[in-house]
């Protein structure tokens, strides 16, 4: 049961985080394809995906050689930095302090920017289109790679983590093909809030495990940690709103 709890959490964290990042990458790839042609956009996307797969294939076996205690502490610290950064931003968005992520606005901005540059007619490949889609996939995908490796490697659960990311990737590609425009209906900010909570819970859990602190309830404490992070984050949203109101007075 504990193994399933770990695998399930790794799968869920990887799936949700990948969904958010792939939606963001899809927006830019769609902008590139619609303005500068699909061929170069697809080649850039494919090369980006290959690069990301190579990173996972390189790092996972390398991390398997690191002693589990050290790996858990190091990955836990990185997950805390990463997850609590997402969580902070999501809280500030919900509190109305910073603007919500808007895929439609990003799409408009990208298409007008790409349309300004005249394509080269000498080659069949549009270098700007290829580079833009490659960069979008690798930059957004870098976060996916980190989450897959972090949630997978520290608990020796790389297969469910990769499966979660792959499923999210397939889902986003299919939706992209179906609707042919940015996926503005995906609740990205809510997903980021959820992923921030899960990754922060994972991070503090791994640090505790690596230091042999002994969590009450052992592996199932992961769920309790996520609940505590959720409750404190909701409280933080309220406090941030109150703080903004006081500043405005």
């Amino acid at each position: 049961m504990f193994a399933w709890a770990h695998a399930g959490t790794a799968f869920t964290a990887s799936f949700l985080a990948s969904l958010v990042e792939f939606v963001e990458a899809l927006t830019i790839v769609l902008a590139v394809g619609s303005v500068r042609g699909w061929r170069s956009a697809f080649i850039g996307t494919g090369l980006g995906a290959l690069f990301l797969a190579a990173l996972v294939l390189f790092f996972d076996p390398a991390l398997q050689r690191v002693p589990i205690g050290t790996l858990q502490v190091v990955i836990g610290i990185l997950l805390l930095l990463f997850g609590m950064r997402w969580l902070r931003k999501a809280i500030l968005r919900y509190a109305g302090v910073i603007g919500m992520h808007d895929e439609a606005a990003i799409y408009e901005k990208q298409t007008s920017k790409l349309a300004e540059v005249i394509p080269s007619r000498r080659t069949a490949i549009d270098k700007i289109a290829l580079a833009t889609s490659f960069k979008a996939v690798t930059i957004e995908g870098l976060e996916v790679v980190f989450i897959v490796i972090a949630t997978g490697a520290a608990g020796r659960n790389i297969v469910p983590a990769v499966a979660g990311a792959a499923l999210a990737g397939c889902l986003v590609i299919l939706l992209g093909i179906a609707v042919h425009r940015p996926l503005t209906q995906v609740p990205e900010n809510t997903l980021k809030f959820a992923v921030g909570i899960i990754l922060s819970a994972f991070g503090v859990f791994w640090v505790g495990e690596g230091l042999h602190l002994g969590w009450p309830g052992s592996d199932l404490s992961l769920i309790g940690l996520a609940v505590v992070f959720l409750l404190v984050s909701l409280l933080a949203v309220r406090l941030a709103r109150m703080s903004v109101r006081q500043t405005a007075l």
Partner: protein
Amino acid sequence: MNAIVTAIKEVYGLFVEDGSYAAGILIWLVFAIVVFAHVQRLGGFRAPILLAGLLALLVENVVRSARRLKANN
């Protein structure tokens, strides 16, 4: 060279957005690791203390950032 600098910036940006927040998390973790290794009396309270410190950092930073960002707007 530019590509390497960009890659380093991207990787750094994965973990650090607000420098004081990231530094606070790191300092708390290092402090906790050192203290927990030397003070055995804390026993079963060590894990909840580790969590409480992180949650305090989160709430403090969110409230401070909210105040600062709104004041700048």
